[in-house]
């Protein structure tokens, strides 16, 4: 059996199915209860709670956002009433009003066959639609049964429907993990005054799980004694029920590790979920008073959920406890920064800026002499690029890493560097071409970044595997190779602009237009070659330090080599006179697909040592790009043949006059030989 994350999740899923079915709450009432609206203060407090997930500490907002993205394909929930909930508000409902959240349509089903496979009613639904847990609940046993069957099929052999059924089951499992998380906080057990249980609880007349954990030792002793004596049957029954229900409800609170360990615990220690507190208490390491007080804080939240003022006060207290401890451990400073990153929506504004610049570009091309439009476009591109660089910088600060350590970050970096190179080129030649391309790559790059995030549906700031835990090589090799990708892709875009505009006769009246564009392509290609070559060799040196060999013909290494070789071929062919301006642009445009293959394509092969970069769901997008780029190259070939035909005709006409003037066609120096 493989040990991929999906397989592990699947095993967990299968292991939990019986528990899930057992623990699934009873069907909700006909009309779900209303709840007071969450105030902005409450949302702000909730989203800034720290949580340990995926090996790092992050704000609860991040966790809520990516969880909702996985379930729903969106970062917010639109209710049938028209109300829109943010991810944090949705999570608050799931935790505190699960009976209400069960009615929210959050489970995205891509294909109607999936719900038909589990016989859920599609009445009033579209082919691709969202379902609530309430709608899935009647057939949930069938869903898990099918998921179990499909899990036995290799992922690559599953049909689309089988895979989607499997994924839906995993999403439902994930949801159940959250909706049951605070079930323990809603539990309370009346205690007979004057009884032995009351005595073991220091005279309390109501027992909550936190109180039970606090007095777990005396309660277990009491249980053993009552069991041995076969004395008061009612007391024994009440105690057993109390312990069993506490255990059951706490066992569902595994998914959110919101409780920082004690301040004196070592750094990077595991944070706790409520069930961990229970397990620790049971294992005899003793009930951690601080953690038990944390659980009591959650119980107060649940108890005050219908009283906004009291709820906010309880949340503020709990927030103060948890954040204070995290701060004392030095584990909170990045949480604030990450909140700033997401709240500021800096990346969105950068994207909007590039889109605006792209529209301004369109007007600029209609009025190329307008200084206002030129200045406005340039400024918009500049501001958008600065925002993008700000995004990358913030991410570096949050992660404590160089700019690129994940596939997602390569997209941001490639876009930023491409925009910078294009702006530099524009500053040098001021022909309105490079600035237009900067806007174009900004729009496309950030569209890809967003699309990738939506497809991958995972935290974009994950922990890194051991081999990547080196800021030196991330800062040198990865940055260099990604800069090479960036310049190569920019060259391919510029070359594509050259080929398309030439094919459609754009700026035919300006003979310098395409020549200038051709020189830009050449210049950017040279820049790309420097970084691709140095980056590739640095990668080999890193591999030599990590794995003991400079070159291992691993697919990712080969991809990098392919980029270098393709660029070397183009430049040598140009030097040799085999490629001129038009040919150079055709070859460079084709080179874009070589870069795409290296950047994304080899990850789809599913082999090699660079498995930390693997992703799924990009196959179609990649082949769409290949197709478009090859079509552009084909268009270039058609234009070349057309011009060649015209030139041949022209030459036939001209030959008489050439003979008369004695002029010869221009030849490149050194053509055909290094010497």
């Amino acid at each position, binding site marked *: 059996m493989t040990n991929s994350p999906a397989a592990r999740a699947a095993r967990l899923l299968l292991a939990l199915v019986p528990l899930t079915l057992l623990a699934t709450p009873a069907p909700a009432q006909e009309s779900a209860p209303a709840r007071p609206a969450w105030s902005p203060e409450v949302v702000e407090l909730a989203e800034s709670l720290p949580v340990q997930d995926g090996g790092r500490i992050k704000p609860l907002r991040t966790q809520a956002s990516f969880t909702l993205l996985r379930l729903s394909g969106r970062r917010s929930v639109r209710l049938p009433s028209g109300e829109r909930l943010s991810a944090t508000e949705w999570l608050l409902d799931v935790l505190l009003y699960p009976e209400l959240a069960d009615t929210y349509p959050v489970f995205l089903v891509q294909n109607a066959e999936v719900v038909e496979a589990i016989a859920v009613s599609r009445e009033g639904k579209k082919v691709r639609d969202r379902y609530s847990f309430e709608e899935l609940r009647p057939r949930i046993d069938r869903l898990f049964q099918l998921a179990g069957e499909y899990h036995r099929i290799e992922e690559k052999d599953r049909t689309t429907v089988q895979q989607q059924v499997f994924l839906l089951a995993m999403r439902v499992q994930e949801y159940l993990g959250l909706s049951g998380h605070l079930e323990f906080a809603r539990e309370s057990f009346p205690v007979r005054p004057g009884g032995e249980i009351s005595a073991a609880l220091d005279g309390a007349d109501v027992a909550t799980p936190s109180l039970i954990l606090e007095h777990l030792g005396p309660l277990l002793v009491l249980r053993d004694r009552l069991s041995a004596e076969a004395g008061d049957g009612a007391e024994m029954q009440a105690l057993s029920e109390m312990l069993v229900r506490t255990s059951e409800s706490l066992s569902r609170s595994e998914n959110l590790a919101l409780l920082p360990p004690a301040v004196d615990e070592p750094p990077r220690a595991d944070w706790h979920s409520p069930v961990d507190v229970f397990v620790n208490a049971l294992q005899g390491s003793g009930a951690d008073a601080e953690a038990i007080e944390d659980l009591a804080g959650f119980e107060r939240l649940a108890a005050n959920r219908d009283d906004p003022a009291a709820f906010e006060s309880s949340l503020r207290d709990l927030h103060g406890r948890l954040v204070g401890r995290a701060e004392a451990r030095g584990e909170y400073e990045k949480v604030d920064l990450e909140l700033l990153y997401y709240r500021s929506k800096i990346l969105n504004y950068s994207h909007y800026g590039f889109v605006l610049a792209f529209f301004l570009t369109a007007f600029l091309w209609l009025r190329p002499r307008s200084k206002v439009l030129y200045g406005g476009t340039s400024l918009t591109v500049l501001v958008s690029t600065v925002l993008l660089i700000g995004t990358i910088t913030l991410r570096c600060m949050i992660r404590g890493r160089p700019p690129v350590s994940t596939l997602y970050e390569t997209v941001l970096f490639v876009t930023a560097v491409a925009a910078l190179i294009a702006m530099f080129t524009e500053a040098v030649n001021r022909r309105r071409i490079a600035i237009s391309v900067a806007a174009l790559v900004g729009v496309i790059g950030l569209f890809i970044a967003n699309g990738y995030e939506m497809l991958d549906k995972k935290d974009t700031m994950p922990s890194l595997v051991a081999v990547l*835990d080196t800021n030196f090589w991330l800062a040198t090799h990865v940055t260099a190779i990604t800069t090479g990708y960036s310049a190569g892709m920019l060259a391919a875009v510029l070359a594509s602009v050259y080929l398309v505009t030439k094919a459609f006769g754009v700026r035919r009246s300006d003979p310098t237009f395409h020549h200038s564009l051709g020189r830009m392509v050449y210049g950017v290609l040279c820049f790309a070659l420097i970084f691709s070559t140095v980056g590739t*060799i640095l990668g080999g040196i890193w591999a030599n330090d990590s794995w*003991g*060999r400079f070159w291992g013909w691993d697919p990712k290494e080969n991809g990098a*080599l392919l980029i270098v070789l393709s660029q070397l071929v183009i430049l040598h062919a140009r030097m*040799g006179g085999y490629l001129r301006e038009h040919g150079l642009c055709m070859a460079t445009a084709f080179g874009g697909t070589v870069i795409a293959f290296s950047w994304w394509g080899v990850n789809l092969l599913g*082999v090699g040592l660079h498995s930390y970069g693997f992703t799924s769901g990009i196959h179609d997008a990649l082949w769409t790009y290949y197709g478009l780029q090859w079509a552009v190259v084909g268009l270039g070939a058609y234009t070349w043949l057309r011009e060649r035909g015209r030139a041949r005709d022209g030459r036939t006409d001209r030959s008489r006059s050439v003979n008369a003037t004695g002029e010869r066609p221009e030849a490149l120096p*050194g053509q055909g030989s*290094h010497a």
Partner: protein
Amino acid sequence: MKTLLERFVRLFSSFGLSCVLLILLALLTWLGTLEQVNTGLFEVQKKYFESFFLVHQAGPLSIPLPGANLVMCVLALNLLVGGILRMRRGAATAGVLVVHLGISLLLVSGFVKTYFSNEGHLTLFEGQRSNSYQSYYRWEISIARPLGGGNVHELLVPQEDFVDATGARPVTLVSDELPFDLEIRHYMRNCRVMPKGPMFEVTVPVVDGFFLQADALAKEAEHNVAGAYATAVLPDGTRTEGILWGLDDAPWTVSVDGADWTVDLRHEQYPMPFSVELDVFTKENHPRTNMPSKFSSDVTVLEGGSSRPVKIQMNEPLRDQGLVLYQASWGPSNARPGDPLFSTLSVVRNPADQFPLYACIVIAFGMVMHFSRRLFRYMRAEARR
């Protein structure tokens, strides 16, 4: 009339040849990358990248191609003749010349690595010590006789001497130091030892009720386990049959004149000029995940009477006396908390270990030199416009 030499020099200094060779190398790289989906890296490497010729199977089509070894040899010649010796000298080409020199250094490092290096691994549990490492892929036959006092008289047979042994054409190993000849037959690159049952027949010999069953080559070449049939032919003509198998717990023993000789098929072993003892192996996961965040081996390096502690971890190998030891893996993979773990250190002897770094610096310098000159010229031209 051009002489043959002139034609040769012209051909080997041409941009046309450079382009063809670079395209061929790119094609081989691409095909070899795609082939890895179906075939293991080791086999792909042998077929596409360490060969002089190959036949690529594209569906029903068999396409003959030059191997990367051949392409790179010709490319090196092309680089030397056209890119260094006959290149036009001057400020305009100085950077390119430097780049070509850097690439030459890179090619030299590849050559040295291919022909003068070896690699293997050293696997130790905590407290264990070793002064040798063994190959991942190469096999050897060790024929040894104990001399007493912990010493042995050992003869080593490299794999080149027996890998071609078949049932029809056995290989006979003869040595003046051996009191018997050793015939090797049916060498198999990946096989297992199986008991011969009454309900089936086999086409290979059966020795003491066991036979070697050939298996398909493993995708990961280090998982292949070699095996062969061996026959000791004593001076009096007596023949003793045995099975050699890479995973045997104990070697096959041949007794001659009261002396016991052990014959063992094992991974090739290389001595180290020092011993390494594993003190502590540490494996850490990211909190609340199964994702490893760190592996490290705290070892003691012992040489002569001295010893020193060293920590070997990902990206921080130990370099000593031409050997480099890397943190490669650990196990057992199914170990539970508290179980003893072993650490596997990759060991490489490569005289050109640091050449790529020097080449990278030279190439980067040359490229910056060349392209910055062109950039400034372009900027000047644009400024004039």
